[in-house]
């Protein structure tokens, strides 16, 4: 995974302090407004409908600034479900490669971790981690919407600079300061 994105190329040649400030702004906007792209690489739809439920009013993932977007070219986070079938493998790689760096992958569901109920089937090449690098695994068959939210939030928390991360951890702890 490339560390430097388009932003780095654009600001190349600027004074270091200015560059740092720009990168801080980029990180801030990325963490507060991650765009998700969803790919089903062979799932039974169970996880996919729970991802949609996560975005629907009851759970409303959008309150964290997240947005489900159709094009991988505009997305920061690939939310992937299911074991990877032989036919879908090439597409999964292609969708991943179309995403601009830095990019992250959240694998939703047991099948994405081990192949789940389909482990060993003839048309399965493996789990998602075998095909693209995965940042967060969300287990469950299917995971509840709360678990999916938790997965995305864990990813975002990890992206934050250390100081903000401590603050977020404190806020998330039971009885922690808001």
């Amino acid at each position, binding site marked *: 995974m490339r560390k430097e994105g388009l932003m780095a190329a654009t600001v190349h040649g600027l004074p270091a302090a200015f560059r740092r400030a720009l990168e801080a702004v980029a990180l801030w906007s990325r963490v507060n407004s991650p765009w998700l792209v969803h790919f089903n690489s062979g799932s039974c739809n169970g996880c996919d409908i729970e991802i949609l439920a996560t975005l629907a009013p009851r759970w409303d993932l959008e309150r964290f600034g997240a947005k489900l977007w*159709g094009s991988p070219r505009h997305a920061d986070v690939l939310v992937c479900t299911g074991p990877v079938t032989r036919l879908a493998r090439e597409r999964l790689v292609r969708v991943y490669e179309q995403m601009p760096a830095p990019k992250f992958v959240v694998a939703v569901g047991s099948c994405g971790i081990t192949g789940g109920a389909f482990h060993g089937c003839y048309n*399965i090449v493996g789990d998602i981690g075998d095909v693209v690098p995965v940042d967060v695994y969300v287990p469950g*068959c*299917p995971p509840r919407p709360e678990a999916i939210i938790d997965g995305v939030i864990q990813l975002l928390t990890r992206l934050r600079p250390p100081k903000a991360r401590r603050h977020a951890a404190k806020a998330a702890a039971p009885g922690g300061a808001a």
Partner: protein
Amino acid sequence: MSAADLSRIQGALAPWLTGSRLASDTRLDMETPAENLLAAVTAFRGLAWGYLSAITGLDGLGPAAGPSASEAAPGGAPAQGSASQHGTLGSIEVLYQFCQGPCLATLRVRVPRDRAEVPSISGAVPSAVLFERELSEMLGVHVTGLPGGKRQFLPDDWPPNVFPLRKDFLVESAAPVADSAPSVGSGEAPGTFIVPIGPQHPALKEPGHFEFAVDGEIITGASIRLGYVHRGIEKAAEDRSWVQGLYLVERICGICSHIHATAYALGVEALAGMTIPPRGQAIRTLLCELERIHSHLLWLGVAAHEAGFDTLFMFSWRDRETVMDLLEQLTGNRVNYAANLIGGVKYEIDAPAADAIRRGMDYLEGRARHYLKIVTTDESFLRRTRGVGTISREMSERFGTVGPTARASGVPTDLRAAAPYAAYGQFPVTPVVDQRCDQEARFVVRVRELSECFRVVREILDRLPPGDLSIPAPRKVAEGEAVSRVEAPRGELFYYLRSTGGVKPDRVKVRTPSLCNWAAVVNVVIGQKLADVPVILAGIDPCFSCNDRSLTLRRRGKTGAGGVETWSWEDLRTYGIRWYGGGRS
């Protein structure tokens, strides 16, 4: 629709048959040699009876397995007997299963394993194309005269002459082959523009790949490539015990998981000759209806989203949580409830749970009335649905559509009423039919079906029979075969189960409703606007979004020396600059 009908068929087809047998009042078993198949099917269609429900291929009728074939009606005891006495090692049996109401007429064709070849019946039965393609890809039965030679289910790099559903198939033999020709890409005439859509699309479920040939805004040709989520479940089921299979088939589809498990369980119970306690059947039926409510609300939201009506999407998904909560309360999981057992159900419904369900139904009833008003009166929404994607009744019957798609075309097909299974005999359902045939009708049918669901759920709660939930199931299931047909939220779901008396099934054949609906949709989009495609595709419920248009623009002729030319983004950009900047004038 009874034994009389079946004997009439038996008589009419007699010249082409080598054997036939009325297994029961609703089951007719006929045998014909491959060379007579087309004539027999044509004569069959001439009787205007029933529709082709599935084509099942069977391999591995070795001497150990025995040639006994017995038919079993769901819920009834299997009738022992044998119509096919000459089962030999090295033959493949192809079953053409025609249904009407509770009746099933099977045409059996036996072909040698090394020269497996049957004629295509798609001339007489247009809906057979996808079934035949499945048969030829999965079991290696060459179907002569089958239009279109492209793969539909297996990956492009799958080696030739390796067929996963043959009994001697080894996973190692399916290693990818190099330099395989991609099966996507259409054979359209030179000069047409192809818009590829899928398999990645943002909001939705099944990835499929579509290619639409367009002339401006109007679609002139459409092709489809399935198989992105092909996992090989039918093969996997042969490798698992009867009970494990229950949890595997539940994961064929996460949206209608309960109905898959129900169809499978009903089939196994029929094979094993089990009689399920009425309370178990009633609770099973109740869960089927709750699942239908969740599935229809899900569809309503997604289809509205495709039409650009996101408010309705959010409202219906908010209300859907009501029924998701009920399912979770009853079974402990929101999706994949694992409520079925072979022999009944796991979960009891007590008084507080029944009250919670009643409250949920009351709330949703009001909402469904509201939705019905919206989908029939909202002016801007109607412009996306009224008169769009019209599948006439004639076309619907020709292509064999099922479920709400067929009912919206005026075909009164609903297995819950026509061939009641589980507890639908005690809690009858009236099919909801609409004659308008367009996208609006599909909305109206599904929303009105919700009201029917609420009524049935209340009725089941009011008259829940007392007694046990389940009976113990045997580890081994008696030899024989069973067909189990149920009405899934999207239409008729067909299961064929075959046992050789062991702890594992010999064959599990699943024919899902969507497979029947594709043919009609691929034909109906021709002549429609490209922008209406998502709405039309969503209409049959394998919901679909147009947002992904990863434009690989193919153009034939002109510069590519007659070959296919794939334009890069740079080419497109240059072309655009030339087109808009003086190149045209």
